[in-house]
């Protein structure tokens, strides 16, 4: 009969109306600033730089290889290499970034920088409340603002961070073993020939090419 469906529909909306006051599961709205939906582990928005230990400047994993800068599709990363070196997590002296800027107003959260980084130094953050009244400077993050501890990384992406730590530990063990073998070989050599041997066992492992490329732009910058 005509109108039956209308009455049925009116009943449905009346039930919704009354039910929303009675049962909490009808109202699925999460009232954001007061309540928050649980964060999904794989969520991501903008990159940050991981550091080990307590000192962010000393512990920064980044070696300023500039792969992320080159791969970044919207070109939002800007890196300046250092002229000196500091030891990395295996104790090997490495170049570090004197400047590492990310313009998150340009960043498109594609995670390519994370995927190409060979040093597990750049990861994606979950922090999304980044609004600022300064649209240019406020959204251009330098390396201090980007630095986050490994513990923080563990707290936001526990599974991924555990995998990364395992991988780094494995690499460290491998390089330690290599260093030990090299040291042993050097010791044997030193024992054989009573010559004055240099103590640096890590020297042959250090890649030769990066220092030569880094020196030029750094010098160019200091000149300019």
């Amino acid at each position: 009969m005509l109108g039956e469906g209308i009455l049925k529909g009116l009943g449905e909306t009346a039930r919704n109306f009354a039910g929303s006051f009675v049962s909490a599961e009808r109202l699925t709205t999460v009232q954001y600033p007061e309540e928050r939906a649980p964060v999904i582990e794989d969520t991501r928005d903008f990159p940050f730089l991981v550091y080990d230990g307590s000192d962010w400047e000393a512990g920064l994993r980044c070696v300023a290889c500039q792969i992320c800068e080159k791969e970044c599709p919207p070109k939002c990363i800007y890196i300046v290499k250092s002229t000196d070196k500091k030891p990395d997590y295996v104790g090997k002296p490495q170049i570090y970034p004197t400047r590492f800027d990310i313009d998150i107003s340009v960043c498109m959260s594609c995670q390519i920088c994370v995927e190409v980084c060979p040093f597990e130094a750049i990861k994606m953050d979950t922090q999304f409340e980044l609004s600022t009244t300064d649209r240019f400077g406020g959204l251009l993050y330098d390396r201090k603002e980007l630095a986050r501890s490994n513990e923080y990384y563990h707290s936001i992406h526990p599974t991924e961070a555990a995998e990364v730590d395992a991988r780094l530990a494995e690499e460290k063990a491998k390089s330690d073993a290599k260093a030990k073998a090299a040291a042993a070989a050097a010791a044997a050599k030193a024992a054989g020939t009573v010559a004055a041997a240099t103590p640096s066992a890590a020297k042959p492992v250090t890649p030769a090419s990066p220092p030569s490329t880094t020196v030029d732009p750094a010098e160019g910058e200091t000149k300019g």
Partner: protein
Amino acid sequence: MIEKADQIFVLLAHWLVSFLPAELQHAAMVLLGVVGIIATFPAIFALTVLLERKGLGRMQNRYGPNRVGPYGLFQPIADGLKSLTKEDIVPFSADAVVHLLAPVLLVVVVFMGYAVLPIGRNMTLVNMDAGLLFFFAIGASTELSVFMAGWSSRNKYSLLGAMRAVAQMISYEVPMLMSSVAVVMMTGSLSLNKIVEAQNQYTFGLPHWYVFTPWGFAGFILFAIAATAETNRSPFDLPEGESELVAGYFTEYSGFKFALFFLGEYVGMMGVSGLGATLFLGGYSAPLQALDFVPSWIWFFAKIMLAMCVFIWIRGTLPRLRQDQLMNFAWKFVLPLTLLNLVVAGMWRFMGDGWMRWVVCSAILLAAYVLMARVGMRKERFGPRSYRYAE
């Protein structure tokens, strides 16, 4: 005491006016009445908008506005301030004068309808003998305003919306008038005060409202349908169908002019609700004799608010009609039933008291309803669609 509470506004107005010289008193009384109407109904409009936003939210299982003030109660104030401070944009090629006049005309016309509505006992601004006629005449002018808005905007969406609105409003004005004619036939008067007084009687403590008779019930339902369409409310909101026409005839309006259209629409809805309450629901009379001690104007406003709640409820429930469905419904279903209702009202009048007229009148109306629904509203079956030029 009860009498005083009932007449409180009348007494207040008389007391205020008594300070003026005698020759100014009549004009001052009228002015006070106008100010009262113009102050009261926008206040109810603010309340209704809040009710609508919160009620619709609840019907869709969400909270609705709840940020401004406690429980979002100050939301209408925020909305008002927002529309006041927004830029008023007039399209370059629009007819600026008509563009400005359209919302003003709408609001003026809509408020004029209240002049004849009996808001309470002795609370009719102009006690006109042909009050009903005046209301419909004024109500028809809203079409003018809508078309002015659509035409002056020089925008295809506005124009389409306005054309739809005018077609719809003219189509539904006929059944709206026809369903009220039955009331006029029974009362024997076009005066809204007399119509209310005719219903303001009780047997066994129950009121003589027209809605409690077969012809009155049918008339009320038909009136409600026509009134919904007349005020462009969902499910008859084709003139402002967002999915097709952006915003219909007020696409090119912004800022306070838009707010005026909004105000006009809601105040118009309240006016039509008030008319419906006056015609079928006993106007300002109490629903039970035992409740007669409550001031009459409270009943009138309660009935208006109830009607607004039903408007909101229907809006939360029904999807929008298609243009051809809208027209079919008006001309093939509502109009024939209203015409039949006139005949039934006549029968009711001349069959005398007794249970016989209840049975006969109800049976005729019910049979007609079922038959019209079966035959008139039957879905037409067309063959597979054929294209003449497109293939």
